[in-house]
């Protein structure tokens, strides 16, 4: 078999294994494990969207929480039944045009992404001309502005009371399909000429411009697509929790996703996927740190907050000592696995360019 066909076979086998895992998970996992498992999928989508703009285009954007919020609210308002809306908006009556608005889940999800993308375009157009630091603060500012607006527009978003009773459409298959689509999309994008343009812009803007790439347009498109994915991710998160309020979408949320991306390797798709899984699971596993600890020699009282200290130290350690993160900007490929010894040599296909 040609190396390409070998790689294709392995890829198909992996895909089949993945589907089998989903079937097993859906059937056998208890609700708690399933919840963590699904949360992993959502973090995969979010990490990939942040990686697109931070890792592949080199733009330091801190506004992710804002786009997630917009996506979540759009999807929520479109999928909630009129009765649920009645129940939620008991303090101040809902804006009348919202009451009747209703879409089935998949179109609502797409709408959420599109609204977030539109916002990303509107935000990006003025802001993407700025340099690194200023871009970071400007996008952070926009996320805060969005949150403040959502808190104050009582008649549209129910303000601080939040929305409760979102239909639980985001089941295992839905979220993991989205994660798989996101990953597939990213792989295709980075392998295309468009992806190469993104990386050129990241590596050296002036050289890229000299090569004829429209730097600004590239940045705006990348930012808009990233916002689309963030909106979808936010909508999925909302539907898994079935309740949302503006306080969820603070800078802490962006920080969590940033943590995932940095740990996995800025600019690596597989890095983001693995890191999303690891961090989500670790967050739950390390829960015991917040309670009383028994070191055999001495015991400490319950010190809440220790878990987040550990994560902050982890981030600092990675940034200071292994800036590349888990995967750097390389991708997991069958060739790499074969080199390490996990797969038979024949599968590798020594020739053929690694992208």
């Amino acid at each position, binding site marked *: 078999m040609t190396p390409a066909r070998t790689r294709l076979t392995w890829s198909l086998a992996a895909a089949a294994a993945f589907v089998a895992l989903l079937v097993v998970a859906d059937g*056998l996992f208890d609700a*708690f*494990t399933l919840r963590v498992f699904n949360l992993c999928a959502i973090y995969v989508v979010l990490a990939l969207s942040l990686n697109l703009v931070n890792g592949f285009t080199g733009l330091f954007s801190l506004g992710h929480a804002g786009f997630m919020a917009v996506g979540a609210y759009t999807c929520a308002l479109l999928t909630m039944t009129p009765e649920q809306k009645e129940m939620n908006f008991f*303090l101040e009556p809902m804006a009348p045009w919202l009451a009747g608005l209703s879409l089935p889940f998949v179109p609502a999800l797409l709408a959420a992404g599109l609204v977030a993308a539109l916002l990303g375009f509107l935000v990006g157009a003025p802001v993407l001309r700025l340099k690194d630091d200023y871009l970071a603060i400007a996008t952070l500012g926009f996320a805060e502005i969005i949150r403040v607006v959502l808190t104050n527009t009582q008649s549209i978003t129910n303000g*601080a009371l939040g929305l409760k009773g979102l239909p639980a459409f985001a089941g295992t298959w839905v979220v993991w399909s989205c994660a798989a689509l996101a990953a597939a999309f990213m792989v295709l994008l980075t392998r295309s000429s468009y992806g190469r343009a993104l990386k050129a812009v990241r590596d050296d803007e002036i050289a890229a411009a000299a090569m004829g790439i429209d730097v600004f347009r590239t940045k705006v498109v990348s930012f808009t697509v990233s916002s689309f994915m963030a909106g979808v991710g936010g909508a999925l998160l909302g539907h898994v*929790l079935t*309740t*949302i309020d503006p*306080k969820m979408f603070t800078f802490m949320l962006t920080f969590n996703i940033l943590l995932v991306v940095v740990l996995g390797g800025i600019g690596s798709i597989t890095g983001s996927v693995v890191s999303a899984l690891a961090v989500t*699971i670790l967050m739950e596993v390390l829960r015991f740190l917040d309670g009383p600890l028994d070191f055999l020699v001495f015991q400490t009282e319950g010190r809440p907050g220790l878990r987040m200290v550990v994560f902050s130290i982890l981030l600092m350690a990675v940034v200071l000592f292994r800036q590349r993160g888990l995967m750097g900007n390389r991708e997991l490929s069958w060739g790499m696995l074969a080199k390490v010894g996990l797969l038979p040599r024949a599968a590798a296909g020594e020739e053929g360019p690694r992208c």
Partner: protein
Amino acid sequence: MKRLAVALSAVLLVSLGCSQSKPTTVKLGVFEPMTGANAAGGAMEVEGIKLANELYPTVKVGGAEMKIELVLADNKSDKVEAANAAQRLVDKDKVNAVLGSWGSSLSMSAGPIVKDKKIPAVALSATNPLVTKGNDYYFRVCFIDPFQGTVMANYAVKEVKAKKAVIIREVSNDYSVGLAKFFVDAFKKLTGDDAAILAELNYNTNDQDFTAQLTAVKAHNPDVIFAPGNYTESALIIKQARELGITAPFLGGDTWETPEFMDVGKQAVEGAVFSTFFATEVPITPTSTVFLDAYRKKYSKEPAAVTALGFDGYLVVRAAIEKAGSLDGTKIRDALAATQAFPGAAGLITFDQNRDATKSAVIKVVRGGKFTYLTTVQP
């Protein structure tokens, strides 16, 4: 890939967590914020629950006397974490009932989870009506905001003899927004004056400078100011108001009853009036006396109102388990729903058709650096 292996094994470990064994203890999940913005409130409720567990550590189920074990889960004052914590309690720890949470939005996170698994939950001080609406498995042992708002409006009109009021609310806090709205409605009705509310000014959580809003308030010169919000901001608001020369009395809600409110506000908060669930000077039932004695002996200080509610939550669930005679979630739920005039430390508990408790409210004032009881208001 070593790291991939580590990640996969972590997934497997987590999924292997459940162990199946015949229950010999009754497990009560304590679902409270121990860290994050609401940590203070959560800690106070947990104090009450733990005290009750010390005094009444067992329950009679069917014929057997079973020990009650508390399983604590910190929801970190964060919604996503709250959902995870609740799921964990219900699935991995297999609790038979849940107590909590402080903070209505956190309780709402747990709502669909307990409903799905048919585990009854009792909120202790969450006053947002949405917590129990539409959820057969969520109860609460405190009154709800519509009642509390009316209580304060009555006080404003009858005692303070106020005709015009100004509202200062924390726009990013559902409790504050809700309570303010109910006060406004009641105040307008009582004064018969639609323009009785001169202004409604907002601020955000974690704000520290309120001089702009307060200068506007001073210009309106109201008879009374209703400022429901967390004690963290409220103490500063009242202090800055007095510094600006505003003399109108301040009214608030149950979140003011914490030692930090006076620690930060010091002299300025003298005379602040608020509604709450419980007063240590006025034991309402025999249980109140039991609770007060035990608490004073253990901590040598006065308990907070929400601590009494924590105590009550534990007792009411324990009574329901005993009445149901089984550990089945639905049976406990039904027994809870049938609770009538249960003597709790903070009053008699009867659950109405929305599973809310109709309780009397207590009004307190800050006098001489202490929370002093003023009066009780019946529903």
